[in-house]
């Protein structure tokens, strides 16, 4: 074979080897383990029970520090979500205190309504920062705002397997990833060591532990269960129309395959006389 061809093959192989080996060398974030999510894949759906449990975890634990400012109480009753009734969602809303002003213009609080969004636990950014030195991020888009490096060739396979759950995998792993720092790791005074957090030094103290939240449906009250449930809830919070999207997707793809097939035979017929 020609010199040029051999050069091309050599360069490509060198590149491929580099691509596979190098990511392992530059590891600043341990890849989280993959969980089985009910909403993964082309026919994925949210598990309503899981979303309701996850919501309970959010409300009782996370909401103390983390806002969910782009989710409204009415979303809890919408199709494709946790499946609360409108009355239940209204009850959740009325427990919330929404900042308002009274008739004389003085700041006050009122009971929440379905149209209201989840209120922030802090009045402003500076107050949020004061607790742990870093403002706890809003959780509305968190499950889509977190990921981990997949590396080559895995990201190519992901296109075919439709792996889009990097965010929930990361969040669930993070919840379970608190551990003692290894020998020689310098942990700053207010930091916590987490295996999956990039750089390993996280400002958030471990938020969850076994038995912390009571589940009414008999699901195990373990850290592992809480982590997965809250990660699934946060995925719904970030992507409430996921179920509708995948459903319409099946219809569209089947339609396009039928159309492409018809167009193919039409093309063959037309070109027959060319």
């Amino acid at each position, binding site marked *: 074979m020609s010199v040029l061809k051999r050069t091309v093959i050599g360069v490509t192989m060198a590149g491929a080897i580099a691509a596979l080996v190098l990511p392992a060398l530059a590891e600043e974030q341990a890849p989280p383990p993959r969980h089985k999510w009910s909403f993964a894949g082309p026919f994925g759906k949210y598990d309503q029970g899981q979303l309701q449990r996850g919501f309970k975890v959010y409300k009782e634990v996370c909401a103390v520090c983390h806002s969910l400012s782009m989710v409204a109480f009415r979303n809890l009753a919408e199709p494709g979500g946790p499946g609360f009734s409108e009355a239940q969602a209204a009850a959740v809303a009325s427990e919330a205190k929404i900042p308002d002003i009274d008739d004389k213009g003085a700041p006050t609080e009122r009971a929440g*309504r379905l*149209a209201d969004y989840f209120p922030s636990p802090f009045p402003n950014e500076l107050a949020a920062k004061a607790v742990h030195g870093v403002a706890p991020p809003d959780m509305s888009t968190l499950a889509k705002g977190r990921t981990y490096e997949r590396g080559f060739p895995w990201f190519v396979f992901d296109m075919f397997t439709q792996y889009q759950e990097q965010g929930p995998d990361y969040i669930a792993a993070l919840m379970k990833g608190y551990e003692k720092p290894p020998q020689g790791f310098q942990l700053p005074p207010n930091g916590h060591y987490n295996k999956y957090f990039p750089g390993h030094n996280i400002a958030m103290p471990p938020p969850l532990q076994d038995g912390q939240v009571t589940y009414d449906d008999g699901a195990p009250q373990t850290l592992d269960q809480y982590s997965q449930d809250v990660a699934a809830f946060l995925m719904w919070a970030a992507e409430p129309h996921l179920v509708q999207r995948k459903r319409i997707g099946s219809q569209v793809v089947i339609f396009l395959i039928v*159309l492409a097939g018809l167009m193919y035979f039409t093309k063959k*017929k037309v070109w027959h006389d060319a």
Partner: protein
Amino acid sequence: MNKPPEERAKDVTTVSSAEHTRRDFLYIATGAVGAVGAAAVLVPLIAQMNPDASTIAAGAPIDVDLAPIADGQIIKLFWRSKPIFIFHRTKKEIEEAEKVNVASLPDPETDSARVKQGHDQWLVVIGICTHLGCIPLGHQGEYGGWFCPCHGSVYDTSGRIRSGPAPKNLALPPYKFVSDTKIQIG
């Protein structure tokens, strides 16, 4: 095969009728499926202009406390971005509304049809002039109701049009009494 493309295309029509219908069926099927696709594409493009979920939620029914409204007072609030007048009518204003000759009105309607039974001191109307949409001014005009400064329409204490260019009485929003001192609009 030496003919120009347009003439060669005409040759296509001079084949047997059996082949003709088979070929036509394929073309018709393809065209029909394509048309269905084109129509389906239009659905989200048109639907997105309808009120979105947050707008609809903001237009949900609201509760209004009537207790602070004094005798003879008109308050104004917004529901679904429309101004609503709540008029706490005095006995005199109720009488004036009731004793009008209904047949002589431009838009005949009795006062009792415009209030809730047992609560005739409360008039709840949408504060948009039925002429061209301005907001009429309360406690003005010769009937003690509203006067629209834009083109001079005059409404009475039942919100009915009495003179001026407006064709209809002030519209009534959907509402109900949840208690004697509280209504729910919407």
